[in-house]
Structures are given as structure tokens and as C-alpha cells.
């Protein structure tokens, strides 16, 4: 049980990744607007919130890297999309939480900035390897929709990730501080 508690956040990120795929299959039509479509970024949001709430834990970056590699292989079969994006988001989240006030509105702004930056990065990578021919205008609209969906997902799920990060920090044995 002691070891399980240390891995709760990792398991939660695994569930977030699965939910990303399952919900994308179901909400595909709802998230499409003309020629543009919003991305479902539950996993990046979870990584960012965990980084906000557990900003002293350097191991979170390694967890984000591992989650990124698994997500890349599962969704695309290549490494370099989530595997780069998630550790960068985690590192940014830890820095951001130390610099800006611990208020939800500031966290939401930071999160929207990073999810938008991540969407731009994904678009650039896919343009580079020839997986998409979407123009800058189309990409801009998709990023705008993605920001909207990310804001909604953040409002709905922030408390879950925050609670998990506070109560079960990754690879930290809280039982050591009990007595």
C-alpha cells in the first residue's frame, strides 16, 4: 500500500491518457467546427496541474517524460510529440507556481498558455514530418478551439489532479512524516 500510494499520480496519468483517446472517439463530432477541430488535452492538463501543486518534486519531470513516451507510442507510433511537450510543461508548471500567486485564475492562464504552445508545437512537428497540410489560419482556429476545451476541462478536473498531487506526490513516501 505504501508503494502504491507513491505511484497513484502515475496511475492517474495513465487513466488520463486512456480517457483522452476514448473521449476523442466519442466527442469527435462535437469538437469539430467546419474545417478545424479542437484537441483533447486531458493528459497535458493533468501533468501541468500536478506540477503546479507538487512544485518541489523534481521527479515529476521524469514522470512526465515517461508518460510522454508511452503516449507518443500509443497514439502515433513515433517519439517526440508528448515526450518533449509533457516534460517541458511539467518544468514550466513548477517554475510558474513559484513565480505567480497561488490563485486559480493565474493557474488557468498559465495552463491555457502552455496548452496553446503545445498545440503549436504539435502542428509544427506534424507539418515538418508531412502528416498535415493545415495552413496557419486553420491551425490558429484549431488552437483557439483547443484553448476553449482546455479551459472547460481544467475547470472540471483541476480539483482531482490537485488533490492527487497533494495527497500522493510521485515517489514521495508521506508515511515517513506521519509521526
Amino acid at each position, binding site marked *: 500500500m505504501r508503494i502504491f500510494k507513491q505511484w497513484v499520480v502515475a496511475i492517474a496519468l495513465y487513466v488520463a491518457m486512456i480517457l483522452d483517446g476514448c*473521449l476523442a472517439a466519442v466527442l469527435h463530432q462535437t469538437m469539430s467546427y467546419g474545417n478545424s477541430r479542437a484537441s483533447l488535452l486531458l493528459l497535458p492538463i493533468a501533468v501541468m496541474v500536478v506540477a503546479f501543486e507538487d512544485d518541489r518534486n523534481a521527479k515529476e519531470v521524469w514522470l512526465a517524460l515517461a508518460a510522454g513516451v508511452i503516449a507518443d507510442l500509443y497514439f502515433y507510433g513515433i517519439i517526440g510529440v508528448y515526450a518533449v511537450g509533457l516534460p517541458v510543461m511539467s518544468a514550466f508548471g513548477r517554475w510558474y507556481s513559484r513565480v505567480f500567486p497561488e490563485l486559480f485564475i493565474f493557474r488557468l492562464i498559465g495552463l491555457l498558455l502552455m496548452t496553446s504552445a503545445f498545440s503549436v508545437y504539435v502542428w509544427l512537428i506534424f507539418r515538418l514530418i508531412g502528416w498535415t497540410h493545415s495552413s496557419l489560419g486553420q491551425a490558429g482556429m484549431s488552437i483557439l478551439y483547443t484553448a476553449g476545451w482546455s479551459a472547460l476541462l481544467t475547470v472540471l478536473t483541476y480539483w482531482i489532479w490537485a488533490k492527487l498531487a497533494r495527497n500522493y506526490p510521485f515517489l514521495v513516501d508521506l508515511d515517513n512524516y506521519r509521526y
Partner: protein
Amino acid sequence: MKKFFQNRKMLSALGTVVAFIILLGSTVLLRNDLNSPLFIQSLGNDIVSVGSRIVSVPVGWLSGGINNVDAIINAVSENDHLKRKVSETAQVEAENEALKKENAQLKSAAGVKSTLTTYSTTNASVVSRSADSWTEILTIDKGKASGLKKDMAVMSGGGVIGRILEVDAVTSKVELITTTDDSANRFAVQATASNGKTIHGIITAESGGTITFTQASSSSKLTKGTKVYTSGLGGTSPKGLLIGTVTNTTKDSFGLSDLIKIKPAGNLDDTSVVTVVKRSVTG
């Protein structure tokens, strides 16, 4: 420059960027070239898919419930449409049966066991979809264990929706026909022009989710409503799978060749169940 090489942080940052570029490039090449993914990747995908199957069940129930409400609302108009179709079905069925019998007799007389039109099918459920805005990849719950192979055609809602991109032990990835990926394999297709001539070509996708009939083998015109089928010439998909119908014909951006736009027959948006088509004739 000397200062740069003495700065460890800068050097490690540069090293990380170079390492990721190499990793990205090599995995993209591997993905395009390998017939089956590396063992470790396949194992990882199958482990993740176990969770996906569990989670997709309640998500499916929830989504199914909402769809059922929608279906009840549309039930009356759908019922009228189906009644009209049912009256035509009996005649088509009888004709189909007679043609099948005749076809089998002719094949037997000619000593032909299987042709490009012979195939078997496997049904699969969609467990997840790529979550980003730009790729069109589905994950289905059937893989190598069910006899699936890379590049097999996948159908849903009466038409082809894509092809198998990657096969793991118990799951597979499907790339939709609307993908704009430059490295994706394309379907070889055919259609009958208004003058009765058969035109061959391939299917390519434009950004925005439209598909087009390109590299047409003849300048004969395809009129609006012409059905486009797979030709079986690509080596992986059988002949006669419906791709879609021609919506309009325009000139490409250079004004040189025809750009024939096609409305896909398959349901690309609501793909909860798909059918994988296994061609009998190999090569």
C-alpha cells in the same frame, strides 16, 4: 564560440535537442518502413489498450444513451425511408442470388478459385482516437491474433474509411482515408465514366477532410453521382469496395488535370464499430 562550448548548460540543451531530432526522425522512418512495430512498442500498446477497453465500455454506454435519444427522435422519418427500401430489397436479393450462382459456376468452369473480389471480414470495436486536431488515427480491439495485417482496408457505414497502419498482438491502428499524411499508402480505385470507359486512379486527401480521385488514367469525364470503388490493383485491398460518390469535378491549382472530389460512402465521424477486409488473393 569558445564560450559556448565551455557552457555546460548550453551544450546539454543542444545535445538534448539533437537527440530528440534524431529520435523523432528515426521513429518516423521506422513507422513508415516496418511491417510490424518493435516488440517493446507492441507490448506497450497492448498494455495501454487493456485500460482503453475497460474505460471505453462506460464511455460507450454514456455516448450510446445520448445517441439512442437522438435515434428515437428520428425514428419516424427513418422508418418511412426504410419501408421504401424494403420493397426494393426482395428483387435485388433475388437478382444477387442468381448472379452469385452464375458467377460460381463460371469460376468453377474456368478453374478459378479466388479473384480480386474474394475477401473475408472481421468486425472490431474502436477503443480510442488520436486526441489532437491534425491526425486521423483510430485504435481498434483486434490485432495480429485475429489475422489482421498492415494495409488491410477498413470499412464502416457501407464504405471504406481507411486502412490498417500498425498491427499489435490484440490491437491495431487505423489511418483514416482523409489523412493528409504524405507517407500514407493510397487506395487504387476505379470508376465507370459516362461513356462506359473504366477509369483508374488513386485516392488522395485534401486538408479539410475532403478526398479526391487523382492520377486518372483517362480524360473521360466522371459525372456527379458516379460511384468510385477500389480496383484491387494496390495489392492489399480487394476489388469492389465502395469508396464514395463523385460530387464535382474541377481543375487543380495549375489548371492542368482534373480534380474529382468524392463524398466518402463510409461513416468517418461515428466509427464505433468497423469491419476489416482481408483480401483472399495475395500479392
